């Protein structure tokens, strides 16, 4: 419980604490991506030393930060991890499946530790201890590297003096594998150097490994700088000249020295390197990262061109295994992105909302001025200003909305880790295939999505995908597949979770629902196949007697459905026994700004999201039929159930000024539709369309059904926004038999 604002005398660590959490999270996200990519590469038998180095550096940085900010557990874990990663990158140990496992576990643990640091979760002490022990067993005893052969190359000794130990190791390794060394000299303007280098890296990487960048000090003017870039490659100089070219750029091969015996340049004073005994014969190759081929430069041909950052790369063909190439993602150019606190964006949105109110007032003023012929000039000016204001406001609104959009790939990676973890735990091999990770959606929605999606995937693995043997028995491939697809369709984003597991049997579902008293036997008979599959969303429904440790964590499918509903979305499920199950989640792209239809009910104003409104008509009371208190009417030849909002909300009996006169004017019916269900809301009158900024109601009101949020109406008044899907469900839920009765009658 807060005891009030922090006092003076905050330590530097306290002041920078938010930066710490933010940076640590970013590092973890990057780590996760890189590990997934490493996993994929290693399965293909490839190695990627740059990737390993990136992972090392991330852990290295985390260790430093943890120490600075007093996060002891994080320090301990980082320390141990660093040793293992150092051994890995210097070739002292191999990247086996066991090592990868431990690395993945470490990422999970980092996440838990970070939450504990933020005070959001308990300390994971036990897990940390056991992981530390496991990591400790990995570290090797041998000292590093083989005898050096750097003496063979005509490199300025001072260059070798500025290589870090790692860079030196990479240099040695490449040379020992028989690669040639090249020197790229390029002059770059300091102002644009970051992007220019990214460009150059992109051109160079497919052909070799960049060892280091060295400023030569021959820049001349202060605004530009000359760099010498050492690159090791299997190609020849001629081959390299084509892709690696540009203004102010030369490339040449680093000549090999003459063999011993001939007096050449001064002996290389390369302290503190080990003194070289120049030998012509090649030294035994340094231990390589993986059992098969010696470290090769990253694969080039056959991979296709790299997509531009920061979008995520495309998915591998189905069945190829693994998750999308995370390596491309780590072209996370630090200078290109900004990490933003979503609260700041909300604040900006609020201001946009207020400006929108000003714009409306401005329009009214313009009208008044227009009405006065004496102010003609002023009126024209005002009109012009209003238009400009409106235009810019729209642009700003759209701009902020775009900033809020993030690619779904963020949570998809987390899910990939979960799948990997679970499929190792159970005797089920599962392949996760992701498409559409670049599909963007509002950041707030993304954050709320990760739990429901995780639950669906756990369900799919636990209940859907059969064990290896069972699958082989029915002639399915032994490795199960879960497909995670995301795509945009008009105003919505659709996310599908599809598995090729056992599917669900309708009879079993119905029987369970009946047994748990969720529906009666008669009701069960009248259900369509789709309705039967959707029974799983009823509260209290689980097909396994003992919920397994995975999916029985207290989150049922009903909660998943409710949570998705709170985001303004709907979820649907279909299945085919023996073939598989598919869950489709439909979500609005952004929560923030929506178009609404204002309505008035018993003196209260409400807003109905236009996305759910089919049309609005004047009410003809004579068309309404009454069935045991439920009402419906025929509209365009079909049945339309109706609902009087005043009654539903219990507003009818409040004394309102013109309730009497309201009877005299015609009411309206707002016909709402969600999915294939329709309901007509009877309201007193329509107010008009507008775009509003929708804000969530507090947690304290989460129990109140029927409202998606509220919006500011100007003058600090608040209008409630209806949750159409929830209301339709509520009103129509118990209406099935009456509905059917009406159909037969009509």
């Amino acid at each position, binding site marked *: *419980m*807060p*005891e*009030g604002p922090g006092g003076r005398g905050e330590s530097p660590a306290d002041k920078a604490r938010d930066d710490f959490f933010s940076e640590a999270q970013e590092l973890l996200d990057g780590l996760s991506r890189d590990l997934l990519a490493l996993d994929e590469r290693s399965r293909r038998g490839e190695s990627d030393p740059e990737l390993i180095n990136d992972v090392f550096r991330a852990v290295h940085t985390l260790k430093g930060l943890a120490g600075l900010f007093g996060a002891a557990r994080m320090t301990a874990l980082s320390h141990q991890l660093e040793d293992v990663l150092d051994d890995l990158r210097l070739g002292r140990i191999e990247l086996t499946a066991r090592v990868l496992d431990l690395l993945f576990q470490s990422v999970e643990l980092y996440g838990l530790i970070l939450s504990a640091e933020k005070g959001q979760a308990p300390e994971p002490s036990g897990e940390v201890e056991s992981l530390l022990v496991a990591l400790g067993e990995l570290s090797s005893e041998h000292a590093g590297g083989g005898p050096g052969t750097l003496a063979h190359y005509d490199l300025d000794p001072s260059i070798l003096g500025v290589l870090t130990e790692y860079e030196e190791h990479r240099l040695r390794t490449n040379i020992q594998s028989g690669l040639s060394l090249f020197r790229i000299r390029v002059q770059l303007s300091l102002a644009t150097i970051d992007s220019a280098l990214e460009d150059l890296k992109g051109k160079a990487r497919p052909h070799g490994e960049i060892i280091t960048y060295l400023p030569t000090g021959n820049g001349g003017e202060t605004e530009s700088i000359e760099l010498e870039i050492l690159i090791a490659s299997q190609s020849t100089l001629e081959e390299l000249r084509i892709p690696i070219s540009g203004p102010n750029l030369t490339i040449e091969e680093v000549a090999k020295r003459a063999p011993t015996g001939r007096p050449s340049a001064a002996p290389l004073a390369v302290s503190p390197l080990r003194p070289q005994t120049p030998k012509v014969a090649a030294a035994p190759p340094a231990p390589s990262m993986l059992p098969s081929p010696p470290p090769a430069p990253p694969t080039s041909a056959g991979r296709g061109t790299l997509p531009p950052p920061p979008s995520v790369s495309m998915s591998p063909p189905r069945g190829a295994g693994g998750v999308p190439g995370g390596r491309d993602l780590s072209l996370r150019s630090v200078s290109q992105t900004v990490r933003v606190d979503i609260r700041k964006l909300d*604040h900006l949105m*609020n*201001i946009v*909302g*207020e400006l929108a109110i000003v714009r409306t007032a401005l329009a009214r003023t313009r009208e008044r001025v227009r009405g006065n012929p004496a102010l003609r000039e002023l009126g024209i000016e005002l009109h012009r200003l209003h238009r400009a204001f409106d235009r810019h406001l729209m642009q700003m609104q759209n701009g902020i909305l775009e900033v809020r959009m993030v690619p779904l790939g963020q949570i998809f990676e987390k899910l990939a880790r979960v799948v990997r973890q679970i499929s190792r735990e159970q005797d089920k091999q599962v392949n996760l295939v992701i498409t559409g990770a670049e599909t963007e959606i509002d950041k707030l929605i993304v954050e709320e999505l990760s739990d429901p999606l995780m639950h669906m995937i756990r369900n799919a693995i636990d209940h859907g995908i059969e064990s290896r043997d069972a699958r082989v028995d029915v002639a399915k491939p032994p490795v199960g597949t879960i497909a995670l697809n995301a795509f945009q369709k008009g105003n919505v984003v659709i996310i599908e979770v599809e598995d090729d597991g056992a599917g669900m049997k309708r009879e079993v579902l119905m029987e369970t629902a009946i047994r748990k008293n969720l529906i009666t036997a008669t009701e069960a008979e009248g259900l369509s196949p789709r309705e039967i599959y959707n029974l799983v969303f009823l509260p209290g429904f689980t097909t396994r007697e003992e919920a397994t440790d995975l999916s029985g964590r207290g989150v049922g499918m009903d909660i998943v459905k409710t949570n998705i509903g709170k985001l303004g979305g709907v979820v649907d499920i279909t299945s085919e026994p023996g073939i598989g199950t598919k869950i489709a989640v439909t979500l609005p792209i952004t929560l923030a700004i929506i178009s609404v239809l204002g309505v008035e009910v018993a003196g*209260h104003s409400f807003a109905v999201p236009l996305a759910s409104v089919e049309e609005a008509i004047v009410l003809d009371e004579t068309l309404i039929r009454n069935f045991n208190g439920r009402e419906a009417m025929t509209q365009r030849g079909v049945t339309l159930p109706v609902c009087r909002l005043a009654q539903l*909300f*219990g*507003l009818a009996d409040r004394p309102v000024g013109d309730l009497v006169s309201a009877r005299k004017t015609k009411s309206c019916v707002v016909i709402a539709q969600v999915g294939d269900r329709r309901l007509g809301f009877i309201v007193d009158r329509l107010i008009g369309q507008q775009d509003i900024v929708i*804000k*969530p*109601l*507090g*947690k*304290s*009101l989460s*129990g*109140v*059904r*029927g*409202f998606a*949020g*509220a919006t*500011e109406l100007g*003058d*600090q*008044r*608040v*209008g*409630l926004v209806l949750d159409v899907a929830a209301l339709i469900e509520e009103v129509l839920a118990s209406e099935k038999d009456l509905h059917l009765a009406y159909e037969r009658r009509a």
Partner: protein
Amino acid sequence: MRQRLGTGMNRAAVRRAADIGKRVEYLAFSIAGELYAVKIAFVAEILKPLPITEVPRAPRNVVGVMSVRGRLVTVIDLRRRLRMPEAPIDAHTRILLTDIGQGEQIGLMVDRVNQVYRLAENEIEPADVLGGDQPAHIAGIGRPDRALLILLNLIPILTV
């Protein structure tokens, strides 16, 4: 920080300051003529009533929602919560914006706000002095110099 403690008068001032450090500050307000109080650490702001929009089907104690600088705040009527008859909003009515660290600030509507009391440990009596089985929202009785305050626990009050 680098203060010079010189004369006896300064010393006394320092000692009194140290004493005050041990007291807890409570904000007192009235409901139907009775004085109540809550720890001021939990009161983020005191507002004059803004337009409050009723929320249909909300729990009884909720008056509605209001917009505070662009944020939606749920407002609870303390009179209703304490099972007292309702009274109209008047010039003295205030809304206490309370924050108990649950990620949401909740408004508490009271008749009028009085003053802040610094209660020492010996000025607070535990709730069971009124007899056993007191409701959860009563934290105790505060007895500063000339007043009697009913001290309230906010969590049971703010849980709708």
